């Protein structure tokens, strides 16, 4: 702590504080426009000037020194600030009353008001509004050139699109050095519009919606603005705009929620008026994401008000779905489930919990299965993705979840990304890695079959063959051992079974790994050397690792490597399976798994069973439950007669679609709970229409084990109900004595039965607060696991030896290997994102990525229609020739719900311990069916997709170039 003297008064300053920090921390308001805490000092606005020793300095960028004397309020320095504000306002028309930004949080409005600006000159810029991007617009006329957007785009989310061209007269923000926004490399993450302090970068969804006067006709508005130029700002008109802004705030509701898409867990306020979504605003205190979002979280919410939503329960009668009332539907479901249970026993029913519902809904769903129906046949979509990751972690360190949090990843020396297209599938997490790499030299290694964005950015890109990662991990481990680079102390003090592990590595020579993975020996050595050189390492992985015949073993091998190098149980280390859905972590954590009760308490542990039997007043079933994939088999062989599927499009998600369809046909009774008439719902006997995440409250757990609360932004669409209410009503109709008033009560019940959530209370999750489980009763949470002990009885981590399993490889007939996965813009089958016009503009259809070499060899050009055939099925899709794939690897994204879904092709191969399908080991052949329709070969992806443009990296806003302009007046002395 040091002391500075501001206008003679002493103030305490913390180490590293700037003068502005010290002022704000001490509750002294001081003008600052370009400064934003998450972005740091940009030094572009000069509105924060103070004088130190008679010299003007920027308070936002000047470090405090003990004993420093600061002149913050003398007439001279105040006049200097006013003068700088006047310079800034040359770039901005203060038409606040008609402006859609004036909602109480316009930085410029508030600062100008605070400084008492009475009159200002305005020089319009000779550039038109760029409204080409479907989601936001840039109005150069209103841009004060503060550079916040540039800093955010370049160094916060590191999408590297924006810069200010200081050489132009007047300067302006440019996309890719001068393209229109829609043709630039902009990925529409919206972060620039979030941080813009004025209405220059504005979400289109709020244009014309916020101001009471913004819907008046354009010519009238124009006149009004002219009028305001003559009259404004005078005190009176300021007051009108304040009054009007306050009235706006009364009608705009801001509700904190958590994103419904991927597992990053971005939290934000959603601004609504009634059911209209005005915009999504992440906040500084958003724990996982700060100010960042991706295009889906920021702009992908049209589905909530889509006319395609189901609004009445539907019952299958005479070959059609007939709308019925809720009472009738619930009674019918309960009666049919009871009948099946009576005739075939409780284990003839399978239940799937939704991984987009809340934790409390997941808990009720598994309780319905176990307590009311009487079966452990309860699973969720983690089965299709990260179940092998949990297996690998449970085998080695004991807890089947990310061992740390995103801050550990960002702080690590080395991040190894295996089989994860992070920049597209978990974009906000990718930004943290990109930022660490760009701003402080974090090293990044990527192992993947495909050259995606993170591969392009990697310090080392290891292009592997599908399913070969286990060999690479083990060969690197062996190399580390052979050179004596293992962390001996850690192994000695904190692990067991080391010798067996060492022995198991014997076959994994560099030669062997090179042969099965195609990775040159020198690259493997480089990889091992980088692992050795890093003081701390995090390994992140996703479906490219898990969805293989040896998925569990590969995850295990990665965990072993982390143990070998001492990279568990301390900051900036650990293993991180990246979760795909917003709450796929939580739905598993809260017990919707066949072999675990809530909090990963084993279904067959007598103590656990006793506790739940007492808590639920029931005798728990004794038979091991079926996984989701096993339920498909069981339906086909007559063991399963009914299924209750909540919020999962199983037909599209499970492998071998024809087989799943057959299983559905075989069932006696199928209930599907959904927002839309999905492909799975089409097979249902009863469809129950439910609420979207914005329409309900509860908690989610994100990929980093972070519990967060979501709140009701709008009531459930008329005719729909929350999953919570529906599950409770079915349980009651089946005779259960459930009377939960809401999720809070459920969370309390979970806390009482589950040590991992003992201290997870509703209050501790208020607002933007969050907790990493396990949460002790005291409320202390766990940002990273295993600090003191691993989750085994002896407290030691366990090396778990693995052996090589040959993956399914192409052969003479099926000579190519097909990879599949996500694209940034869409989510899964597009059930939600395809309802966003803007997203559809950017990616209207899916396509087959094919390498230039293969395309040339097969005479295939951009846009040609190609038939892809596997041993299981075939589909037709247009080709896109791209270097993202090499040689004989093809890539098909998941985002189609109709005739081009990858699971028409996938087969029955699974990872034995988890029964997760080997989606990513798929041998196919292709043939050209037709030439593309255009005169020239045209890719099946619009030119406005950012993949066609090149990013333009730079560090920040380059304010020195502003200072070097002849029209810039240097700070006075």
């Amino acid at each position, binding site marked *: 702590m040091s002391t500075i003297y501001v206008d003679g008064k002493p103030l305490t300053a913390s180490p590293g504080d700037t003068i502005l920090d010290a002022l704000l921390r001490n509750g002294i308001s001081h003008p600052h426009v370009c400064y934003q805490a998450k972005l740091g000092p940009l030094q572009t606005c000069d509105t924060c000037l103070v004088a130190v020793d008679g010299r003007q300095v920027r308070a936002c960028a000047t470090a405090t020194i003990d004993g420093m004397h600061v002149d913050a309020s003398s007439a001279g320095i105040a006049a200097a600030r006013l003068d700088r504000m006047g310079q800034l306002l040359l770039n901005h028309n203060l038409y606040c009353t008609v402006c859609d930004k004036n909602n109480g949080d316009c930085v410029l409005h508030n600062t100008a*008001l605070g400084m008492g600006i009475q009159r200002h000159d305005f020089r319009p810029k000779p550039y038109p509004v760029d409204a080409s991007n479907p989601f936001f617009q840039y109005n150069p006329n209103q841009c004060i050139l503060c550079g916040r957007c540039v800093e955010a785009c370049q160094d916060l989310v590191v999408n590297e699109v924006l810069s200010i061209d200081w050489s132009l007269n007047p300067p302006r923000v440019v996309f890719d050095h001068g393209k229109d926004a829609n043709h630039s490399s902009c990925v529409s993450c919206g972060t620039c519009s979030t941080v813009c302090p004025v209405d220059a970068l504005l979400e289109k969804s709020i244009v014309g919606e916020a101001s009471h006067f913004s*819907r008046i006709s354009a010519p009238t508005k124009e006149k009004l603005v002219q009028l305001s130029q003559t009259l404004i700002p005078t005190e*009176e008109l300021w*007051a009108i705009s304040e009054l009007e802004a*306050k009235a706006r705030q009364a*009608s705009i509701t801001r509700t904190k929620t958590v994103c419904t898409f991927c597992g990053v867990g971005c939290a934000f306020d959603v601004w609504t008026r009634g059911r209209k979504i005005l915009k999504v605003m992440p906040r500084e205190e958003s724990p996982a994401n700060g100010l960042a979002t991706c295009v889906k979280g920021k702009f992908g919410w049209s589905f909530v008000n889509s006319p395609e939503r189901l609004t009445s329960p539907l019952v299958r009668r005479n070959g*059609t*779905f007939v709308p019925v009332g809720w009472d009738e539907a619930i009674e019918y479901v309960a009666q049919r489930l009871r009948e099946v249970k009576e005739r075939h026993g409780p284990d003839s029913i399978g239940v799937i919990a939704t991984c987009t519902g809340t934790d409390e809904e997941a808990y009720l769903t598994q309780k319905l299965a176990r307590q009311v129906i009487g079966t452990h046949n309860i699973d969720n979509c983690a089965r299709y993705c990260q179940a092998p990751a949990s297996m690998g972690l449970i085998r080695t360190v004991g807890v089947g979840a990310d061992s740390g949090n995103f801050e550990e990843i960002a702080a690590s020396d080395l991040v190894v990304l295996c089989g994860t297209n992070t920049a597209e599938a978990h974009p906000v997490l990718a930004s943290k890695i990109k930022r660490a790499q760009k701003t402080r030299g974090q090293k990044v290694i990527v192992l993947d079959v495909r050259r995606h964005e993170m591969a392009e950015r990697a310090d080392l890109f290891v292009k592997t063959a599908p399913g070969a990662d286990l060999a690479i991990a083990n060969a690197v481990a062996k190399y580390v051992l052979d050179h004596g680079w293992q962390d001996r102390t850690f192994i000695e003090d904190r692990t067991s079974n080391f010798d067996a592990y060492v022995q198991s590595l014997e076959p994994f020579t560099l030669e062997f790994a090179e042969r099965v993975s195609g990775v040159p020996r020198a690259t493997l050595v480089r990889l091992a050397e980088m692992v050795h050189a890093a003081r701390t390492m995090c390994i992140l992985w996703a479906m490219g690792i898990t969805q293989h015949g040896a998925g569990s073993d590969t995850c295990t091998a990665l965990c072993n490597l982390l143990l070998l190098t001492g990279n568990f149980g301390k900051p900036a280390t650990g293993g991180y399976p990246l979760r795909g859905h917003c709450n796929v972590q939580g739905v598993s954590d809260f017990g919707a798994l066949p072999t675990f009760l809530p909090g990963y308490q084993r279904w067959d542990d007598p103590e656990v069973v006793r506790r739940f039997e007492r808590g639920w007043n029931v005798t728990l079933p004794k038979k091991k439950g079926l996984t989701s994939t096993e339920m498909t088999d069981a339906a086909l062989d007559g063991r399963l007669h009914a299924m209750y599927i909540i919020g999962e499009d199983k037909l599209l998600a499970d492998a071998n679609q024809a087989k799943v369809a057959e299983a559905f046909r075989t069932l006696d009774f199928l209930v599907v709970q959904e927002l839309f008439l999905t492909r799975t719902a089409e*097979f249902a006997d009863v469809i129950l229409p439910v609420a979207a995440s914005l329409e309900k409250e509860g908690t989610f757990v994100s990929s980093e084990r972070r519990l967060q609360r979501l709140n009701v932004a709008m009531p459930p669409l008329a005719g729909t109900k929350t999953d919570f209410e529906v599950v409770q009503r079915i349980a009651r109709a089946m005779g259960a004595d459930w009377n939960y008033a809401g999720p809070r009560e459920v969370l309390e019940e979970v806390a009482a039965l589950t040590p991992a959530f003992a201290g997870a209370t509703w209050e501790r999750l208020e607002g933007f607060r969050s907790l990493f489980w396990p949460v002790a009763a005291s409320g202390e949470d766990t940002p990273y696991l295993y600090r003191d002990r691993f989750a085994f009885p002896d407290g030691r981590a366990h090396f778990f030896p693995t052996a090589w399993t040959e993956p399914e490889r192409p052969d003479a007939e099926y000579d190519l290997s097909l990879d599949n996965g996500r694209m940034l813009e869409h989510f899964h089958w597009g059930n939600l994102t395809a309802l966003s016009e803007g997203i559809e503009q950017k990616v209207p259809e899916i396509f087959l990525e094919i390498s230039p070499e293969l395309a040339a060899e097969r005479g295939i050009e951009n846009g040609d229609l190609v038939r892809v055939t596997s041993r299981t099925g075939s589909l037709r899709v247009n080709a896109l020739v791209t270097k993202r794939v090499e040689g004989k690897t093809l890539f098909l994204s998941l985002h189609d719900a109709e005739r081009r879904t990858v699971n028409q092709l996938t087969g029955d191969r699974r990872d034995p311990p988890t029964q997760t399908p080997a989606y990513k080991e798929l041998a196919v052949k292709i043939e050209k069916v037709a030439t593309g329709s255009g005169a020239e070969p045209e890719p099946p992806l619009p030119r406005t997709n950012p993949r066609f443009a090149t990013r333009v990296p730079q560090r920040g806003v380059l304010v020195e170039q502003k200072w070097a302009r002849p029209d810039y007046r240097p700070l006075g002395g």
Partner: protein
Amino acid sequence: MAEPIHEVAAPATPTPPELLAEEVQGSKEAVANFLELLRVLDEQGLLRTMTDFLRSNEEILRFAADWLSRPRNLRAVQNLRRVLETLDRVDPERLDRILTEVTEAVERAAAVEPAGPRLGGFAVMRQLGEPETNRGLRVLLAALSKFGTVGERESEDGS
């Protein structure tokens, strides 16, 4: 054997809007006129403005009441309203003259100093953020809360 169904049958029972439509058959014309009024109000954004101001909390009403109670502000608003009313009918050539007139009107208004201690618009607004720093405003607000609505206050003032 449950084959997939791609369509949903039309609901057998009438939807709430249909029921409403049946009910209002008798007074069709009046309802149509009313709806037209709502539509126009909505199109102009006025419906929302009205709703928002009605829904606005005490604080805004008090602030407005205080602010409007100052004669020059009232006149400024009257001026502004007249301008807004005429603006849509104005052709561009006449705009300059109107602007001049309005400016003069506001300047005339500004020349009239309100009686009593002056509470500046800026001060009022700062108060809203930092209520504890201006006792004057609090006194005014307290007085306002006693008087209730603007109308009552005006009649108390005898204006």
